[in-house]
């Protein structure tokens, strides 16, 4: 499976499964990135998303991390793009909790 994966400024990654993109009719991620994203880092190359800047430039902040690519891909595309934004300190906190947060409970 071919993928495009790159690191972003805040400490996370964006992973795009390009095989899914080939059959995507909307290319919603590229469209929204060039509409909303001030960084405008995605373009179409050979029918799939590709980066305009270098990986290093993206990591240094060319990607504005507006998350529009992921949300629009989910709604209008082929659910091929995932933005991973780890927060290990929060995971540690949650592991040590004796009471579950309300989002994990039934009201």
């Amino acid at each position, binding site marked *: 499976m071919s993928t495009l994966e790159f690191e*972003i*400024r*805040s*400490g*996370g990654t964006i992973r795009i499964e390009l095989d899914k993109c080939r059959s995507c009719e909307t290319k919603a991620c590229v469209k929204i990135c060039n509409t*909303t994203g001030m960084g405008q880092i995605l373009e179409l190359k050979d029918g799939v998303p590709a980066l305009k800047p270098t990986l290093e430039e993206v990591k240094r*902040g060319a990607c*504005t*991390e*507006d*998350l*529009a690519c*992921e*949300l629009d891909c989910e*709604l209008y595309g082929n659910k091929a793009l995932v*933005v991973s*934004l780890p*927060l290990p*300190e*929060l995971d*540690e*906190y*949650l592991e*040590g*909790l004796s*009471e*579950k*947060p*309300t*989002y994990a*409970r*039934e*009201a």
Partner: protein
Amino acid sequence: MARLLEYRGKALFRRKGIPVPDGRAVQSAEEALSVADELGFPVAVKAQVHAGGRGKAGAILFAEDRDSLTQAVRELLAKRIHGAPVRELLIEKKADIEQELYVAVTADPSMRQPVAIFSAKGGVEVEQTADEEASAVFTMPIDIMRGFYYYDALNLLRRDWQLDSRRMFAVANLYTNLYRVYREYDCKLAEINPLALTADGPVAVDARVDIDDDALARQTTLDLEVAEEAGERAATALEVAAGTIDENDHRGSIHFVQIDPDGSYAQAEGKVPIGFDCVGAGTSLTTMDELVPLGYYPINFCDSSGNPVGSKLYRITKVIMSQPQIEGYVFVSCVSSQQLDNTARGIIKAFKELYPSTGGQPNIPCVLVFRGAWDDVAIDLFKQHGISAGRWVRVLGRDTAEIEAAEVFDALYKEWKSETGGF
């Protein structure tokens, strides 16, 4: 502001040649006994918490033998000092004190320069001395470009004629070393209270070192966690988690503090604990002012402004929603140029991840008010993703005042409570 525990502050003092009592940090009676066997009795047993006023709070005990040491350690480790649990103790050789002084170097924002503060009446009552006997406290502004020299310290110390002139030289030397600590570690405050005068010379019996938050990035040797200033207590785990959000990315900022970390204040006041986020600290305070009289208590403060990237909103929303006590969530933006569609996307991604079975529709009452740039897009995004259609969500626009946001939340909470019974 990052405040060092006493034993860590003393380690910095030692590096700069300031005498401190021999001692070590411990976490159990067994460790304490082992340290005391090395040092010899009597020893001081000191709770290591960030709160000040430990002497008066019973956080410092003395032990003459192994039995009294074991008892003191057990007593202190079971204690909370100003709400903070005691996890570490400092076991030190008890100093034979003849006189207690107060010496400090701190930042004076009104003068925009450091100031040295000295009093020959140091000890636990120093605040009272400052209030009631201002003439016993002496200050000297320091020109940061010039520095603070031995003779500057002498000039300051000489202003109190009660100080023995033979001891003045050693104290002046120590004072210049304290200034070196202040400068080299980017302190807001480097304080010794008391500075004990003993037969062997001056000894820093206590240490308070507060590091400027904005300098933490270059104070890498201190290995400090970055979190918002939260008064006398140490940062909570959630505050530390939130503190990492801005660590690598300065596009916008997140300021998160748990006002009531365990929800106990809200409970004692009979208020409903809620999670809270605002764009703009002023909006945050005015919205709180509207929520509290209606019976709701935001157990955290959060200001996510300066046009943060969506990923920051995603992370902080997860932090806020992870407070187990909350029975609601309120987000209000001030009218600003912040690109609110990015803000909305961060919250939407977080909601979708936290509530996967409902596609992001939360199970607690949530009111979100978007006012400002791209607010219409923000509101539309909640509709597109089906979150606005949730039973317990209200997404409001720029015609909503803070009081209306609070009233909408109040009505929604009552409906939710009556229908679900709450948690």
